[in-house]
């Protein structure tokens, strides 16, 4: 069980609130294929169901993403993790943390929840093996204090998968 909520979160700024409301409306009108937003009244934490794309290793598998928004979203990236059980993937740790550059160093405020979801699905889809990252055990052990993946100093494995 990951305790991602360990870091106390500040309430969303007005700008963040505004933008998230707009994203939510857009999502409802035009949701990305393969994703379902679980409706809650919590704008700051979205739980999204992902269905593996047909014709890939993850076809028909269902996973859950948890997206937490910081006070100054979108000037800061959201924290995105898989809820247990996380898919077996060379860039996804068993605690649900995802090694994907756009969630950290390469974040851009022009990205949206929807575009992040599509990137994650494409990362899943292009995988050729269902396995954990090599350093899984070490990494997960280091995160046992409830550290957010955003505090990790990632080195990005490669951009093929």
């Amino acid at each position, binding site marked *: 069980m990951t305790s991602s909520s360990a870091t106390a979160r500040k309430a969303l700024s007005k700008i963040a609130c*505004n*933008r998230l409301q707009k994203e939510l409306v*857009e999502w409802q009108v035009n949701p990305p294929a393969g994703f379902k937003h679980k409706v809650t009244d919590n704008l700051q934490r979205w739980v999204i169901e992902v269905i593996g794309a047909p014709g890939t290793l993850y076809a028909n598998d269902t996973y859950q993403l948890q997206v937490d928004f910081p006070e100054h979203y979108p000037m800061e990236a959201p924290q995105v993790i898989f809820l247990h059980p996380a898919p077996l993937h060379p860039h996804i740790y068993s605690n649900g943390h995802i090694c994907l550059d756009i969630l950290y160093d390469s974040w*851009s405020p022009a990205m949206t929840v929807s575009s992040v979801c599509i990137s994650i699905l494409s990362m899943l889809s292009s995988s050729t093996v269902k396995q954990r990252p090599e350093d899984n055990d070490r990494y997960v052990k280091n995160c046992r204090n409830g550290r957010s993946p955003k505090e990790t100093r990632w080195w990005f494995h490669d951009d093929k998968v």
Partner: protein
Amino acid sequence: MGQGEVLTPEKQAERLKEDGNSYYKKERFAAAIDAYTEAIALCPNVPVYWTNRAVCHRRRNNWKKVEEDCRTAIKLDPNAVKCDDLCSLVARSTLLSTHEQAHYMLGLALLQREEYAEGVRALERAMELETGANPTGKNMVEEIWQELAKSKYILWEKTSTQRSWELQSLKEACENALREKYFLDDHQSEGFLDETAAACNAQQLDDLDKVFKKAGEDDVPSEVPDYLCCKISLDIFRDPVITPSGVTYERGVILDHLQKVGRFDPITRAPLEPSQLIPNLAIKEAVQSYLQKHGWAYRTD
């Protein structure tokens, strides 16, 4: 204060203003107002004394006085120099020149007493002055916009209700006329009107409905088109600027990005510096014309 006698009225007034400013800092608004009033008595032609006093009145919610002082300040000097005076004490107003501030506060005062049309004009003037100011740094566009949009939305609500009521009654009159015409035709031909006439009448009523729906369309709240919205805030543009990549963003938002996230264009990731941002006047005009037609788009919530 032995040299008091040699002071010119201008210098005395300046001293009084400084006294006023330090009272203001201590939130002693009545004392500050007295000091500015004395300064005004000595030198009534200095706009900043009036606007500073207006700021104090504002803090005391005395909007009538705010309005009076702002009007005087505006009349005095339309090209007042930037003041770094009391304005810099008022966090919200740090960046406004005396003149802009006079328009801004006048607008607020008018809106307080629900003088929307004139209040909006004052705020628009402040907004216009402010968009030109400090193009690469922080400005007050967003604050002014918020106030402006609120009032514009109220104005729209009022006028659109009236419009839709008028449209509705015109529509009913037209429908009745069509039905009556059919009835008369029917009567004239002594009941020999065939089914085509009935179908034609039904079609006309249907068309009439469409025409009126179309006529009222602009007043039906929907989504603002994407091309009039900033790709980051997803909100309608106030002060749009274009990057060398050809992407348009809201000035305040892209500046915030450049400062906090990185020196690149958020969409193309091409390197980007604040000095490369150019106002996108065409989009600004498009936004203005859109807002003129679709007042509901001022909704800020």
